[in-house]
């Protein structure tokens, strides 16, 4: 199975159309390989993005430089996946 070692999920709070536009540009950058969990939409809804480990620094740097407020909602995606996998295997064993 695909692994997501070091990958994290960022939650970005967007306050206006300009911030949505900047974020959309970031998401559309092919080289960063970002994956949207929750898309940019209305201003009062945050955006959730899966950031691969190799893109963590550039993405953080971009968000900081653009004044975009964000938090890391899932710090260790692979740990969650491993737990889930273990649970499923345990259940199948039972």
């Amino acid at each position: 199975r695909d692994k997501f070692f070091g990958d994290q999920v960022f939650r970005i709070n967007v306050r206006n159309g300009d911030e949505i536009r900047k974020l959309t540009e970031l998401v559309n950058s092919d080289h960063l390989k970002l994956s949207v969990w929750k898309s940019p939409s209305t201003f009062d809804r945050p955006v959730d993005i899966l950031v691969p480990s190799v893109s963590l620094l550039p993405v953080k740097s971009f968000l900081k430089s653009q004044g975009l407020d964000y938090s890391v909602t899932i710090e260790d995606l692979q740990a969650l996946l491993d737990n889930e996998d273990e649970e499923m295997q345990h259940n199948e064993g039972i």
Partner: protein
Amino acid sequence: ERSGDFNYGAYHPLEAIYHEMDSIATDFPELVSRVKIGETFEKRPMYVLKFSTGGGKKRPAIWLNAGIHAREWISQATAIWTARKIVTDYKKDPAITSILKKVDIFLLPVANPDGYVYTQSQNRLWRKTRSRNPGSRCVGADPNRNWNASFAGEGTSDNPCSEVYHGSHPNSEVEVKSVVDFIQKHGNFKCFIDLHSYSQLLMYPYGYTVKKAPDAEELDDVARNAAQALASLSGTKYRVGPTCTTVYPASGSSVDWAYDNGIKYAFTFELRDTGYYGFLLPASQIIPTAEETWLGLKTIMEHVRDHLY
């Protein structure tokens, strides 16, 4: 769960879900049948459970759709729990008993079987179908952008590599076409509910336009009542509103198609949570989620029962 070996509080492979569907139909043959409505791109069967107390083939009906986006596992898990709940409560709970007296319920727990299998075998975060796109290295289309409701409109992409790629044409995805054909052939569906995750939202048309749906006021009332019922169990708060302004523009969706094709009571649930786990909701939350969702579903189905048109 006590009488069988299917753990409703766990996530399961596709085969186990299909086996449990068969078990439910076998256990309650006077109420339930497992119906094959088509095959996927990779030739897997697509099964629905039909709950019916008789009354002829074209009775008014409700469609419960789940798992159209493969990675939203709480959706499939909630759906199979709901199947067991319906049979368990029939003739015990006056609400579901009276609903089934008037309408049939069709439940599709895994609307995207190929995608679901792929999330288990290869990539847990896969969303789309697994169809091949000629000329592209990218696989699949978004099955919730592939319906014939402002197809290829706002909120979709013509790039096969996009998570919201709409497909080559409406119903290009055989998984979507199978449902469309079944519902159109039946001709008497009154309600279509699509289960997704995550965000804790209960939405109604439209997704493809900010224009207010003709029945928006009634749908809003029903949705608010359903959200209130859902919250009554554990306090889980849902936001309610039309898809386009509650989340984002989304064209070609199942619910918009259903509404535009005469199925008035069309709703989308975005189940737990609000982002702490996102798509990776722990299995310990399956039963609490399913139990509260059931209260919301029942509210909607009771309204349909009392407002057949």
